[in-house]
């Protein structure tokens, strides 16, 4: 093969009909308030852990919907469960419970 000096990156589409939703569905069943999230980012803005990590609950919720579980696992490890996000959430999402349920779901075999 000739040396082109570049390579073709593979496409990374997220097909919402085919994403892995088991973790999101588990959390949604136990804590339906997750569905109220409007992705405003107030949780991420006030997050203590965000000062020293990439943690953002808004991002976690989005990644759960997209089925990007490996990234979710990395982010939720940083949460201190301080609950500041719960105080600022304009939609009253039970964010602490959400994190605990995500941890629980990640330890369970889900299909």
């Amino acid at each position, binding site marked *: 093969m*000739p040396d*082109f000096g*570049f*390579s*073709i990156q593979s*496409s990374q589409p997220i097909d919402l009909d085919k994403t892995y939703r088991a973790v999101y569905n588990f959390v949604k069943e136990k804590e339906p308030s997750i569905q109220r999230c409007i992705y405003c980012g107030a949780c991420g803005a006030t997050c203590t852990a965000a000062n020293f990590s990439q943690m953002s609950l808004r991002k976690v919720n989005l990644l759960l919907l997209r089925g990007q579980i490996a990234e979710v696992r990395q982010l939720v490890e940083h949460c201190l469960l301080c609950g500041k996000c719960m105080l600022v959430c304009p939609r009253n999402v039970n964010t602490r419970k959400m994190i605990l349920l995500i941890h629980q779901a990640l330890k369970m075999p889900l299909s």
Partner: protein
Amino acid sequence: MKNVGKQLIWQQYQKEIAEDHFFYVRSCIRQNFFPGAEATFLRILKDVLHKDVYDDPAHTTCTGIGYHTDIIPLETTMTVVARQFALMTEKGYKNFIPSCVTSFGLYLEILESWHNHPEVLNQIRKYLKEATGRTFELPENIVHASDIIYKFRREIASKAKYRLVNQQTGQPLRVVEHIGCHYAKMFPHKSVGGAEFPRVLSGIIEEWGGEVIDYPERRHCCGFGFRQYFIKANRGYTFSSVKKKFDSMHPYSPDLIVTNCPGCNVFLDKGQYVISEQEGIVYGANGYGIPVLTFEELAGLIVGFDPWDIGLQVHQVSVEPLLDKMGVWYEPEKKYRGKNNIPLGQPLQPTVLKTF
């Protein structure tokens, strides 16, 4: 949506295309990579449609590539464009046709800037006068060359020797149309059909007997993106886009791709070679690629010009499977013969992509 509403929306995307007396400006990319295309366009206008068209040897690049890669100041670009208009004015023309979609977008952008900022126009008039002693008038009608073919598509169809129909099966050829981003995405109301549903190529294809394929990535960019391709390390972005388009259209088994933009034509044609070498994938039947033609070349084929006269031998993907399907007569031994039968030499063979 009620039919009346549809018609109202469609009316917004109709444009006035002049009837005759055109001043033609060429494309840097098209005349280098597909040198027969522009000659074919002029031949169709003069010999088939009997129109008055002037191809001025004194005109230059529009500097669009330099402008989009941020290496030429906007004032310089505007002055160069003003010089093209000055040439048009001097020759007594008012209808301006750029061959290139990038140029077309650039001319529209500059005219729009001048319309909104007359002081800039006055400044550019001053620059041009100081630099060259020329003065200019703004064009009355500015359309892309593909708009002209679109306008006269029925006339061309009435004089056609071949149609976009598979001669063996009698079925319409399945055609992918690809429209350059700068044709409709910058100024949708200056195109035929707007940015969402540009009609300029699909109208031509359907009039000439073909069937247009609607595939998911139909409106995706070819990947040229100027800075994506001109910086070598970024070229992966270009060919990732090309691959995305081909992966998307492949299930629909297209017989042919038609483009109206010089850059798109290069990347969809020569990109098939790059993908075949790097990924080992070929998208056409029997190890050949999918032929990619410019709208001028397609018009030339339809009216019966010799495929080698319109420059189809310089395409990376062999066009012979398409010519056979359409029933176009050609002499295989003359493929690499130039004027007065002078041998042009043989191209090197790719490793994966099969060529004739």
